[in-house]
């Protein structure tokens, strides 16, 4: 067992995958000698060679497009996009080939690849470096979108994503990269994709979230219990596409109240989808409408003013108290 940060846990998962499966290769900007701008791929080129851990030219469309082509040939590329804001440069290849080539060829060419990219705010970065656009991927048939929340599940989910026969957008909450350490077992671990994690059970209200927002949700649940006697059930989606509707609906059928918390923009965001599904399937159990506590429909604010545009612990507490008083 080792106490690892998320960055170290991801590095471990990649190293394991490279060791155990010769089809696996990594590609991206500055991932080789430099080990990636966040050091997620540190030392991997030295260990596995420049043909398996490739520094690419500065062109995201080229990265994703060529990764697709490698997957078609049977490799399992893991492509890094330096920040999720730059996935826009690869949108065509993501939507047209990564997501659809399997379908187009009637299953003949499975696209077993992963696009890893750090997302989200909270690290005082410049514009285009704090995007949370998981809803784009959830709205793109053919993709899966996986979002870890801590070192241990990051490692297990990344391994599972690399082993998955479908293309996965692996969205890494960069605010968590070095935020804390966690015990990560020696022996390889994977987790089932598409399964949400009920990490706290409770009777009064369901709090749904993922990624870096899990921390404030957890804190809020503690405070709500301690200070207001409100008993929260907390769910970490882990996979935002496909969404584990069953787990969510089961919870809300029990609690009757729900808040979904995320950084991404509100309109047509993950929260909209979660709210719609829960309302469809748990309507008669709902005591209050599902509340969305999300990023606003504005570009992520620059770092002097970014903090309060993100849902914080006290905002979750306030929203939960409101929901408990709803009428």
């Amino acid at each position: 067992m080792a106490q690892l940060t998320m960055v170290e846990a991801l590095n471990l998962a990649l190293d394991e995958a490279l060791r155990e499966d010769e089809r696996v290769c990594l590609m991206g900007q500055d991932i080789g000698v430099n080990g990636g701008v966040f050091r997620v791929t540190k030392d991997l080129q030295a260990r596995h060679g420049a043909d398996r851990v490739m520094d690419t030219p500065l062109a995201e469309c080229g990265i994703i497009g060529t990764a697709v082509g490698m997957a078609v040939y049977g490799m399992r590329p893991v492509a890094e996009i330096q920040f999720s804001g730059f996935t826009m440069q690869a949108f065509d290849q993501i939507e047209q080939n990564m997501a659809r080539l399997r379908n187009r060829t009637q299953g003949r060419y499975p696209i077993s690849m992963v696009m890893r990219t750090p997302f989200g705010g909270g690290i005082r970065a410049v514009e285009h470096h704090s995007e949370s656009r998981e809803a784009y991927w959830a709205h793109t048939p053919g993709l899966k979108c996986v979002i870890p929340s801590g070192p241990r599940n990051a490692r297990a989910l990344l391994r599972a994503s690399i082993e998955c026969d479908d293309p996965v957008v692996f969205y890494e909450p960069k605010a968590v990269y070095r935020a804390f350490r966690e015990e990560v077992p020696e022996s390889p671990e994977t987790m089932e994709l598409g399964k949400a994690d009920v990490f706290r059970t409770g009777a009064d209200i369901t709090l749904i979230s993922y990624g870096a927002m899990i921390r404030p949700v957890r804190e809020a649940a503690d405070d709500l219990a301690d200070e207001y006697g409100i008993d929260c059930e907390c769910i970490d989606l882990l996979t935002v596409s496909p969404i584990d509707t069953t787990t969510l609906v089961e919870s809300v059928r029990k609690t009757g109240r729900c808040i979904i918390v995320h950084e991404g923009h509100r309109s047509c965001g993950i929260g909209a989808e979660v709210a719609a599904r829960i309302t469809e399937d748990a309507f008669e159990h709902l005591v209050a409408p599902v509340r969305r506590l999300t990023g606003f429909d504005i570009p992520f604010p620059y770092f002097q003013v970014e903090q309060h545009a993100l849902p914080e612990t006290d905002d979750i507490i306030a929203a939960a108290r409101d929901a408990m008083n709803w009428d």
Partner: protein
Amino acid sequence: MAADQFIPTDPPEEHTDDAAQVPPIPAAPRTPTGCFNTRAIDPGRIECLQILNASGHIEQGMDPGFSDETLKDVHRAMVLSRAFDARMLTMQRQGEMGTFAPNVGQEACMIGQVWPLTKDDWFAPSYRSFGAQIARGWPMDHLMKLWAGYHEGFAPPPGVNDYPFSIVIGSQVPPAVGTAMAMRRAGRSECVVVNFGDGAFSQGAVAESLNFAAVDKAPVVFVCENNGWAISTPLHKQTEVDALAVRGLGYGVPSIRVDGNDILAMMVAMRDACDRARSGEGPTLIEAVTFRMSLHTTADDPTVYRDEAHVDPWRKRCPIARLETLMMKQGAMAEGDGEAIRAECDQLVLAARDTFRAEAAAKPREVFDHLYASMPESLARQQDEYFKRLDRKGIE
């Protein structure tokens, strides 16, 4: 102050004060006439290859020595492509096909570019490359399904390695390079041929692909089929350069122009390029210069935007006729053989049409089947909803 006020009067001195490691930046030649008065690169310096000239004669000393059998094979493939083309147009006009993109006149490009490929190699076609697809082993009835809007048509047939054609212009190029990158890593001596048009060359994705292929020394041959038009857009509105091959050089990809209506030149250039790829020398760009003789697609009306006069001169350059002249001359073909082959090819196409008609069946219940390796639960619920809809409508 104008540029020519600083025209140097003497040849510049050599510098002696730079450290050895300093890159050779201010290397000669420096312009003697101001900065921009000369185009430093002359597109005419791009090499051009023609072997079989427009009258069907092999240029002196350039005979690649192909056997009669080889010539017969490629000839037949070209005729078959044209027969398929004509039949598809008819079927489209009769409502049996969706929008279709003819390739009449481009058969030498089509067949020449896949001629050197083995089963282990890969081909990434664009939508106009059906002649090449047939030559690569795609059954014609299969391609008919594709053009008629059946999902099955896009699945590469068993034993064929290729990509299905790409509908989004240029989008096949980065994956084709990726497949080549994978081949190099696998240590196999295989290669990928990727086809795209003069219009497609304007896509940034194609430029990125040239660069990726060059830095990776990927075994890929880029075939830019320059047929002069992208729907209604003639080459001179698409780009300022005359020879698209020049573009490859900007990415370090050796590039050549080939007379795309000369099957021998296409075969030779492609074979060399594939050999280069297989032996680890990296990518090549071949600009095959040809002409779009017909409609862009059946949804298009070229009379709106181009003068038939542009087309006429190209009629004389028919790649099939040109090859036939040679074959007649060197005895690979006799009087009447051409007609016989045409008739035989027509029959093959009609037989394929019959198979197509017998087999093609809409399978609305399969549209969810191939998206994921295992269907997510929430998608399965949507499929239920969809099946109930079909049930209600009484659809199988």
